[in-house]
């Protein structure tokens, strides 16, 4: 029991101080019937580090590791190279084993980092302010919908067909309980996004329009006309960014006058991790900060006049406002926000732009090559590092077949939209700086064989 420092003589001495005859005396308030006498069913006794590591390693080996095969998955989680110093720094015990910075005099490290993170996120998204993180992109998205309801006092949200279907599912779940009405759509396998349809559907009841940029099929479109249409009806534009690296190459949603911008920060600093933990990004126009969920770090001074940082505007939060809070969120994604911030500091603006350029150029080359495979059609014309192919057959079995050959080919639309027969032939392919020319050639050659 290597994690438990008390010795039996310690325990005996402490019981004596307490005035208890045995440890059971300290559990007297537990009713007899509720006391568990035996061991937990089936759970072995304590094990050595070696034994546990062996067990866990065996489980890890049953997975196909993304970095060991040609890999093209995206759709909300992206594989990027994370510099070694990021993981080193987040494992410093002073970051890893600290708590939420409620005692600011001895938490300036976390607080200053959060202030820097908020600034980086706001600048990247093009918003005035950003909060100190949410759980992930999907939960940040539904929190934004709730925020729009509080600001506009209207409850009809229009969700673009290009919004990640899991994000739509999360919003649908929450809307059942919050009284929001959601208008949703499925994407069409076309080059154009649904922005014109969205603009036509806004009316006086609309609280917000939620649009993903780039969208689930990888498409990008100017959001400015949509923002104008929203504002003409006193509705808010919520933009969702699942691949923040894109904002090194394309205009930010804030620049196009989005009111709230949320994002999934995973692709900078965090890694794939089978879906979590990730880090939700959330920024907005300054006038809306008091309706924002989550934590804010703010600048102030100490009693000696020195600059310092504290958690602030907490009167929005659950520990003060209880049932009147803007959200029930408490713990957020502090350590992932740190990883994001360190990676972003290493990149800097020049590095982010270069990284984005490499991603985009690689994706263009891959799209051109894959579109040469007989029967394969490139659906997406304007894109960043992810595009959609239309195969001559259902994509899902093709993905499975290629996985058996050691190629992780992308995300089939059949996996994301099992009930939409019209989308079954779609395959979303992501290309990042980690994708090599050989990977693309391997995929293209295998597709040629499988589709022949």
């Amino acid at each position, binding site marked *: 029991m290597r994690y*438990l*420092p008390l010795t039996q003589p310690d*325990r005996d001495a402490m019981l004596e101080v307490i005035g208890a005859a045995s440890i059971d005396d*300290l*559990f007297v308030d537990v009713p007899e019937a509720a006391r568990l006498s035996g*061991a*937990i069913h*089936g*759970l*072995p006794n*304590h094990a050595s580090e070696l034994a546990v590591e062996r067990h*866990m*390693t065996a489980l*890890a080996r*049953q997975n196909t590791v*993304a970095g060991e095969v040609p890999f093209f*998955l995206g759709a909300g989680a992206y594989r990027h190279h994370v510099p070694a*110093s990021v993981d080193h720094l987040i494992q*410093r015990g002073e970051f*890893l084993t*600290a*708590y939420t910075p409620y005692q600011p*005099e001895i938490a*300036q490290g976390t607080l*200053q980092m959060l*202030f820097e993170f908020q600034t980086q996120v706001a600048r990247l998204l093009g918003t005035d302010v950003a909060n100190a993180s949410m759980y992930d992109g999907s939960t940040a998205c539904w929190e934004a919908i709730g925020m729009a309801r509080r600001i506009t006092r209207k409850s009809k949200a229009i969700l673009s067909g290009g919004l990640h279907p899991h994000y739509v*599912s*999360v919003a649908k*779940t929450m809307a059942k*309980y919050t009284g929001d009405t959601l208008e949703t759509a499925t994407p069409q396998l076309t080059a154009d996004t649904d922005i014109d349809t969205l603009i036509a559907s806004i009316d006086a009841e609309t609280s917000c329009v939620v649009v993903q940029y780039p969208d689930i099929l990888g498409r990008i479109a100017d959001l400015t006309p949509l923002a104008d249409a929203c504002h003409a009806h006193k509705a808010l534009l919520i933009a969702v960014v699942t691949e923040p690296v894109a904002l090194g190459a394309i*205009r930010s949603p804030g620049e196009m006058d989005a009111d709230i911008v949320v994002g*999934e920060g995973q692709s900078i600093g965090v890694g794939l*991790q*089978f879906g*979590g*933990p990730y*880090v939700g990004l959330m920024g907005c126009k300054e006038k809306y900060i008091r309706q924002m969920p989550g934590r*804010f770090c703010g600048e*102030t001074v100490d*009693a000696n006049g*020195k600059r310092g940082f*504290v958690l602030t505007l907490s009167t929005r939060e*659950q*520990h*003060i406002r*209880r*049932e*009147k809070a803007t959200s*029930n969120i408490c713990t957020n994604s502090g*350590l992932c926000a740190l990883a994001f911030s360190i990676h972003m*500091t*290493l990149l*800097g*603006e020049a590095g982010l732009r270069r990284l984005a350029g490499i991603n985009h*150029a690689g994706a263009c080359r891959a799209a051109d090559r894959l579109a040469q495979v007989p029967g394969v059609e490139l659906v997406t014309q*304007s894109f*960043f590092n992810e595009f959609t192919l239309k195969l001559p057959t259902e994509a899902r079995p093709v993905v*499975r077949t290629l*996985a058996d050959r050691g190629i992780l080919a992308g995300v089939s639309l059949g996996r994301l939209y099992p009930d939409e027969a019209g989308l079954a032939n779609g395959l979303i392919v992501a290309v990042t*700086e980690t994708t090599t020319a050989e990977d693309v050639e391997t995929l293209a050659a295998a597709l040629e064989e499988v589709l022949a």
Partner: protein
Amino acid sequence: MSINQSGWRPKMTAANGNDAAPTFTGNRALMLEEALIFEIGDTSTTGVDFAEGDVAGSRLGDLSRKAPIGLAGLSEPETIRHYTRLSRQNYAIDLGLFPLGSCTMKHNPRLNEKVARLPGFADVHPLQPVDTVQGALGVINELAVWLIELTGMHGVAMSPKAGAHGELCGILCIKAALEKRGEGHRKVVLVPESAHGTNPATAAFAGFMVEDIPATADGRVDTDALKARLGPDVAAVMITNPNTCGLFERDLKAISDAVHDAGGYVYCDGANFNAIVGRVRPGDLGVDAMHINLHKTFSTPHGGGGPGSGPVVLSEALSPFGPLPFTARMADGHIQLIEEETAGDDHPDTFGRMTAFHGQMGMFTRALTYILSHGADGLRQVAEDAVLNANYVLRSLEGTLDAPFAASGPCMHEAIFSDANLAEGFSTLDVAKGLIDEGFHPMTVYFPLVVHGAMLVEPTETESKAALDQFIGALRSVAERAKAGDTALKSAPHFAPRARLDETLAARKPVLVWKEPPLAQAAE
């Protein structure tokens, strides 16, 4: 756990021992001041080298970014130094005892970190074909089995991202179950006054009306008041056990039976499960839903405010309503992922999806590693040592500080004190800040609300007797100073990287992002 709510703000520069001899840099030997990245970096610097190569060719249309972003970059050595310097301004479990009541700051085993970083877990995409992620699904499934066994429940929802998200999951299960029964009219959720703020916030979010239930003088839920309030409009009771006063709710089974008889459900806030793990199963107490903070009981790192992970164990009555996705082990050992596609057949009553993917995989690997390392005997010892340490603190300090429930019997994993016998003009906040100068993180202060000037101390099981003795000595010394009216305490901490910070200023004129100083000022 709780933030400073005392309303204190600085009025004048305090005499600060630290500033007695100014230095050129503002540094004090190992205490190094560090500017913001925006003040030391610039937009043309990068700490990352990329492969040479052509980045021409654009399918970006007119969306190509033209405006600058304003992101400061640093070289790698500068980056390492910046964050290393920042890290040294933090208190952490790795530095010392971290007695935050209800937050459970225990040692984070490093094997867990190593395991979470195995490429087979860290470098796997959530949408890979299920045949290529059987080991990852195996981790989720194995952890789920142990959580069910440890709690004596029927099922578990693994996807909630943190405790509060788990609370929401449990409450949505209750809501869905009521609607299925045609009793959606039950609108009231009863929450004890001593509950975490997330409880009422969660219930309100789900559209329930929250009503407070008072506490008795001995620090427990007033069972009679609770039973008297039950009726056809009550959907659920949210109860924390052990509660936030550090006491076991003796009557929980009787409460559960009464709630069930009245047609409601019992939600248990499992934030304090670490006190009873291996000794008591909440399922045996009639609980219908309970979230487990993996970052508390099972020691995944708090990371300066997350990520957490909040799986929710469910009774047989609520299990059919749990969220997607989840795993199911087939007869042949293959693990299936139940998502929207197959839910119609396998799980028709699910309330839906709470998050994009499968939950906090990186926390699951750590928690499973922790459970297997401790085993059945170790987990039981965890609860026993946690309770022993808390009682040792309680009995060692009850003669110094007012301990409002000391006469109620033993505490569980945390000991609570009040500000009752401090000198006039001295507050819990002063004691907390005095502890900082002694090299300790303060306990949770001003929570729970049922105790005036509450100080909630949770030492956890990973502290040695020597560490406890030193902490007890320090707290006793600071408390004696507060009782004697030592004014130096009012301006503590004196030796921290910062003196007390002006929280009122921060809230009144929020500065949430860095802005370039005006040119004239910058030129000075």
